[in-house]
């Protein structure tokens, strides 16, 4: 069966070509599986023997099968380079280009052979593991996580196979093929990382890389390759990326000239590869230059300080890498003269990179929407290490006999449901919008002609900017675009924003408990019981009733009481005039029993611990009653 895009005979030939590596890999997977599953069963046996309750189980997750990552770390690269090794010898390349098989079919048939081996290795491990663990007592497998992990291994194998198809298609030697794989995997990440980190360093409006490129990490191939906790959505994205690379590789394979076999690559492609490799090693120099060359003072310091020596050292290293690469790729010294002339391309790339940084930084400063242009603003409150939300004095509360607190604060946490609710709140009121717009304009105005350090030094003397304890990461939606900036608010401004959270229109959304059906996980943790004594309550039927009761009682509480249930500890700022005292305080003493809920939003899990105590007496009684029955 031969079509334009796939040939059964070439697929079988691909399997044959790679069978030695494929069989070794599958056998290795089988051995690792036997050892891992054996270890899990042994632990389960010991647990069963030592515990007096059948509820203690060995939890199995993806990390137990981390050896499966070898499929895309080692097996696929070896298999793929083996399958396409015919491209690296003149006679084999000529042979395969002379037979009546379309190049697309050749590329895709061999790639599918490589992916087949990868999947065989994963299946050799997954099928017996799943069968054994599914029927084993005292073993609890998170099947969703387990199968997502298997899916991740499979899609990353596709991705790596696609990358190698691209690398093999444009090179004529294994060394340059591996170099291209290296460049494709690391260059975008390092370049982008350096780009945003340098901007973070030099910009007075940016403090986090995510303000320039959201989810920077998840766009990177290297990150995909090292991350073990893929969600199904990320797996699909990675599979899509893998397919894109396979199609790109197939296209390049079709365009490939057989005569580049036994040469590093075509002259133009080789120049690009060599420049890219050396460019990666010049990134530290670019960083040093970009961070110093934004002011006259910086330039003076650069030439008088250690930065110049550091730049020279890194530059020297990059030049060595450049020539070593040339030598290893061409295997002779003949091209050294030409290479020396062409090293200028590396410096041109550096100049573009540094220029792009300054350009991007200038664009950030120019982006200054007026209040009328702003649709809404939101505040990323939990990312900064300051009290994130404050509320007014609660006359009912006292601490150690001191005066009632003036302001209270809770610390928000990443991936907490209510923290996320607060941080994703969009403020559309003109006061908040104007506050943000004014702060942004003021920052831009006061920073003109100054470096970040100079600006900070000046700002400290500026009464308006003296309270840098309140940096706020602000998201601004203006003119259909979303921009993210770090602004520095005064205490008063900060409290004004915080108070808005408690105003009815906002509070209604912020303090709403999710419906039972939307929860991906729920149980009650009873900290009164010691560990190992059935301290988790998992009865689904009972939990639904308890949670619904809790929700009903929760909704009837005041915002302050709700906060107390949501955030078990918080700080009071015992402020009177200029005197202040911080105290860590447990709002209510009911956090011994907590309802733990998990909500999945866009593939990300968010949790919340809800105190079950005297503020929710009906739910507490219901729990006690079920607990006794159970």
């Amino acid at each position, binding site marked *: 069966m031969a079509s334009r895009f796939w040939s*059964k005979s070439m697929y079988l030939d691909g399997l044959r070509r790679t069978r030695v590596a494929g069989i070794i890999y599958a056998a290795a997977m089988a051995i690792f599986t036997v050892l891992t599953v054996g270890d899990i069963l042994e632990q389960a046996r010991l647990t069963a023997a030592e515990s007096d309750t059948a509820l203690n189980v060995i939890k199995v997750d993806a990390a137990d099968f981390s050896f499966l990552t070898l499929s895309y770390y080692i097996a696929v690269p070896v298999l793929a380079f083996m399958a396409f090794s015919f491209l690296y010898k003149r006679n084999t390349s000529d042979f395969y280009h002379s*037979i009546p098989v379309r190049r697309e079919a050749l590329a895709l048939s061999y790639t599918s052979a490589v992916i087949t081996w990868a999947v065989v290795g994963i299946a050799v491990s997954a099928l017996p593991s799943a069968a054994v663990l599914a029927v084993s007592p005292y073993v609890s497998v998170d099947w969703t996580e387990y199968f997502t992990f298997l899916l991740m291994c499979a899609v990353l194998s596709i991705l790596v196979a696609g990358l190698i198809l691209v690398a093999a298609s444009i090179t004529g030697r294994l060394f340059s093929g591996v170099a291209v794989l290296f460049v494709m995997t690391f260059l975008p990440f390092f370049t982008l990382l350096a780009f945003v980190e340098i901007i973070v360093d030099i910009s007075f409006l940016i403090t986090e890389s995510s303000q320039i490129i959201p989810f920077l990490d998840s766009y990177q191939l290297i990150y995909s390759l090292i991350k073990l906790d893929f969600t199904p959505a990320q797996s699909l994205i990675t599979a899509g990326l893998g397919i894109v690379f396979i199609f790109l590789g197939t296209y390049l394979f079709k365009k490939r000239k057989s005569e580049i076999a036994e040469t590093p690559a075509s002259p133009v492609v080789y120049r690009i590869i060599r420049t890219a490799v050396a460019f990666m090693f010049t990134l530290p120099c670019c960083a040093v230059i970009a961070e110093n060359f934004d002011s006259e003072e910086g330039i003076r310091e650069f030439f008088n300080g250690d930065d110049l020596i550091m730049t020279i050292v890194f530059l020297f290293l990059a030049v060595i890498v450049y020539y070593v690469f040339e030598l290893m790729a061409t295997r002779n010294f003949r091209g050294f003269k030409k290479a020396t002339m062409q090293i200028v391309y590396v410096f041109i790339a550096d100049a573009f990179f540094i220029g792009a940084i300054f350009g991007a930084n200038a664009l950030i400063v120019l982006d200054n929407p007026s209040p009328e242009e702003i649709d809404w603003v939101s505040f990323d409150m939990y990312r900064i290490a300051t009290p994130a939300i404050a509320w007014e004095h609660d006359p009912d509360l006292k601490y150690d006999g001191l005066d009632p607190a003036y302001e209270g604060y809770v610390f928000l946490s990443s991936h907490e449901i209510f923290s996320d609710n607060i941080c994703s709140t969009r403020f559309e009121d003109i006061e908040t919008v104007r506050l943000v717009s004014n702060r942004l304009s003021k920052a831009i105005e006061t920073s003109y002609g100054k470096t970040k350090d100079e600006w900070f030094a000046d700002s400290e003397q500026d009464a308006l900017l003296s309270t840098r304890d309140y940096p706020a990461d602000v998201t601004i939606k203006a003119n259909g675009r979303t921009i993210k900036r770090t602004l520095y608010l005064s205490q008063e401004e900060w409290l004004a924003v915080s108070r808005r959270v408690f105003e009815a229109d906002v509070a209604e959304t912020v303090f709403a408990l999710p419906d039972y059906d939307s929860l991906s996980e729920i149980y009650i943790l009873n900290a009164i019981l010691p560990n190992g004594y059935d301290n988790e309550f998992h009865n689904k039927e009972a939990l639904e009733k308890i949670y619904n009761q809790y929700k009903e009682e929760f909704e009837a509480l005041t915002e302050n009481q709700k906060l107390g249930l949501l955030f078990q500890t918080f700080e009071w700022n015992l402020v009177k005039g200029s005197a202040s005292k911080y105290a860590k305080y447990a709002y209510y003493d009911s956090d011994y029993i907590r309802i733990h809920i998990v909500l999945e939003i866009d593939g990300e899990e968010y949790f919340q611990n809800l105190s079950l105590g005297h503020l929710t007496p009906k739910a507490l009684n219901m729990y006690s009653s079920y607990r006794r029955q159970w």
Partner: protein
Amino acid sequence: MIIAENLTKKFDDTLALNNLNCKINEGCIYGLVGANGAGKSTFLRLLAGVYKPDSGTITVDGESTYENTAVKAQMVYVPDELYFVAGANMKQMAALYASAYPNFDYGRLNELAEAFGLSLKKPINTFSKGMKRQAATVLALAAKPRILFFDETFDGLDPIVRNTVKKIICADVVDRKSTTIITTHSLRELEDTCDQLGLMYNGGIVFESDISDVKTALSKVQIAFSSEVSRESIEAVLGAESIRSYTNKGSVSNLIVSGDKKEVVQKLNSLSPILLDILPLSLEEFFVYEMNSLGYNFDDVFAKELAENGK
């Protein structure tokens, strides 16, 4: 019919083929001769669809060969540097060929393998260099293509096997009307095999001729007279332009003469020689004289080969 028109191929700064023009008729054995680096292998690779021309065209029955699987299915290319899948035996290689070439004939494979005494089950990497070349030839012939390309295919074969290969190729051409192109740097290899000859030099075909024309176009004559006869006297009879070479030692003269042999003999007999012999002209001699007449120095064209042969 295979037609190459203004075919040009460059590798970086090296011009491998320079506006090459050539026509190869169906059902003939075309010998392409030239020194190493003349462009023979490049021409075959272009013909086999391995390379894409930089300019010009190369067609088989009007169809371009590059990335044309329909045309490629009718051609088998046996390169100078052979390739077999690592560890494969002839049976496995046959499976690969059979999957790619629609006319692959296992009966023919068995027949030819037996004729050459090649084992189908033994790994090819255990074969000697000559046996590998035989294996490649057998696989190519078993694919029953319309067109066969053999690049330096007689290298490494002993004289007996070489003759067997030549015979099989000739039989194939006769039986199936296939077209065969053989490249070599040795003219002697082609002398008794080819129908048509092309001489490559510096990326172009500088001379092309039918072998029948080669054998009739020039005559090597040894002639002796009882008294001294000058070159002018012979030229007066044969015409100065038809004498390509003239050497004289005493009363015996050796000539390379163009034109019909009978006519030449008739004209020379009019000078009443005491000895008149028409000697066989080797292909090499033919080329030497033809090349000289075209303004090329044969020694330049084959400089490397001549040096290697210690000439």
